[in-house]
């Protein structure tokens, strides 16, 4: 915070030199201006960096970026379909619309439509990680249009690419964004944005304590095709979470946890056994899980009220049949937006369990869904060679 104060002192000195052209009797001191600016959206702030150099310094500062991130919270829905990405303002008072979103592409990429849609690995603090083709990753900020391509992973896995699980998360204590790549093999590939490189961790992502020779495998939803990509991990509290199915206890499922700060692996119990149609997500800072009740055309929405405490799983019956439902985010602080069966968005009311179709103009037929916040977080450019640290600024 002392950096902010010294900046404000500079702003103060600067204000004393300014011209007299004012629209009000009182000119606000810089500290008060610094309290107004975090209420603005990213587009306005990016433009206002042009107001003056002290404003640019203030708005670009990592502390300001952090304050803004926690204050503004403009969230958008992200859809991936065919070869397009779409962004949706789901809380607008008008009819929501799916807006085409520019995303970075490899120059050498095959211009013909790819068999699979762009895979959204995850999103944290306004940065989105996508895989446009097998093993080609980009991290980009959809709001500021900054992007970078990741170097090739040094770790490769044999076997079907559909057996590989991915996750993208943020580790607050080390201020780093990480991409994890894992398969049923005793090595995990971890890319660190801070290091700008891949590293390998030994061991499995999840090991059944009752049968260490046979690690759990990533849970695959029964309705998913064998060639469909696995759902990516859910990122929360500096860890990545995947649902695993154990070999030992007749199809029991568990949530494997990979801590991005310590590399430690752990697990959490899922609320019930013998369920299908699992999907996890984060809503309002809590881990959520949805699943279908076997045989019955209805499901449950669970929220883990206390992170890591299995006894705190709280269930709400969902009065709407679904095969797979992924919780996305809160809607107007009252309902929960859910991506259902990869073809529609619904508003789920946790008070009575009802679901209502959420209309979006121009919504594609089939899609993968996620969400992101609008933020000022910068994306460092990663060049092929290891670049100088001075030319690189990782905002918090």
């Amino acid at each position, binding site marked *: 915070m002392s950096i902010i104060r010294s900046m404000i002192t500079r702003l103060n000195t600067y204000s004393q030199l300014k011209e007299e052209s004012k629209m009000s009797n009182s000119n606000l001191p810089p500290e008060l201006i610094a309290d107004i600016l975090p209420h603005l959206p990213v*587009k306005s702030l990016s433009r206002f960096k042009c107001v003056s150099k002290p404003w640019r310094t203030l708005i670009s500062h990592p502390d300001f970026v952090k304050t803004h991130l926690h204050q503004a919270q403009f969230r958008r829905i992200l859809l991936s379909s065919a070869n397009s990405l779409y962004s949706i303002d789901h809380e607008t008072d008008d009819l929501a619309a799916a807006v085409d979103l520019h995303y970075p592409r490899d120059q050498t990429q095959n211009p013909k439509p790819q068999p699979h849609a762009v895979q959204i690995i995850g999103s944290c603090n306004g940065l989105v990680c996508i895989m446009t083709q097998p093993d080609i990753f980009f991290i980009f900020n959809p709001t500021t249009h900054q992007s970078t391509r990741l170097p090739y992973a040094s770790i490769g896995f044999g076997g079907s690419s559909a057996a590989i699980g991915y996750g993208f998360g943020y580790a607050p204590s080390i201020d780093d964004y990480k991409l994890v790549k894992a398969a049923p093999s005793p090595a995990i590939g971890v890319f660190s944005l801070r290091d700008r490189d891949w590293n390998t961790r030994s061991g499995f992502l999840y090991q059944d304590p009752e049968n260490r020779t046979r690690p759990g495998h990533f849970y695959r939803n029964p309705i998913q095709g064998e060639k469909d990509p696995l759902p990516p991990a859910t990122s929360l509290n500096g860890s990545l979470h995947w649902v695993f199915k154990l070999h030992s206890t007749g199809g029991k499922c568990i949530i494997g946890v990979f801590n991005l700060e310590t590399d430690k692996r752990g697990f959490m119990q899922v609320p019930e056994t013998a369920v299908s149609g699992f999907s996890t997500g984060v809503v309002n800072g809590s881990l959520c899980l949805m699943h279908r009740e076997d045989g019955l055309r209805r499901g449950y929405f669970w929220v883990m009220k206390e992170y890591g405490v299995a006894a705190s799983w709280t269930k709400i019956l969902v009065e709407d049949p679904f095969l797979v439902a992924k919780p996305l985010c809160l809607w107007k602080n009252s309902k929960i937006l859910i991506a259902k069966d990869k073809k529609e968005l619904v508003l789920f009311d946790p008070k009575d369990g009802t679901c209502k179709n959420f209309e979006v103009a121009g919504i594609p037929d089939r899609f993968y869904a996620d969400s992101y916040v609008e933020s000022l977080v910068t994306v460092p450019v990663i060049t092929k060679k290891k670049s100088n640290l001075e030319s690189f600024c990782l905002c918090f």
Partner: protein
Amino acid sequence: MSNTSENPKPSSSSAKMTLKTSDNELFEVEEAVAMKFCTVKQYFEDEKDSDVAARGSTTVIPLPNVHSAVLATLISYGKKLPQSNAVADNHEEEETKKKERKKYEQGLLKNLMPGELLDLISAANYLDFKEGLEFFNQALADHIQNKSVEYVRKFFGIKNDYEPHEEEKYREEYAWAFEGVDED
């Protein structure tokens, strides 16, 4: 907290305080509302320590940095906020009150000149009126959100210290941020 030798706490509806503005106007305000101005609360608590008998009724709290028009608006806004000592409403009452407050807020902002927002923010900061400051900060942000760089410079009295070629380069590189901006 209460001591058996002190007077029992009066009900909030009867306790009033008097605030005096920079232009020597006096405002009689309910204690519950005045306590939202933390500067006033601090002053009152300091006074209370020195003279128990003079609780509320005769103390006039000077606010030399706040003009009457500005204080009137802040008090009016403070009254509409949920009172900390009020009886808890049921959900329906809460929703109705929320809607009423939204309507009041919209009406309030419609009648304010942008320059007045600056005075309100300044005063709310001086009074340490947190909810008021949040509200008016957001209102000012909403006002300037789609404005041009030139408007913002004029509004806050900021001198442009970019060289023309620097500014041009920035506008080109961040063209997306300059789209759809209000005409000045």
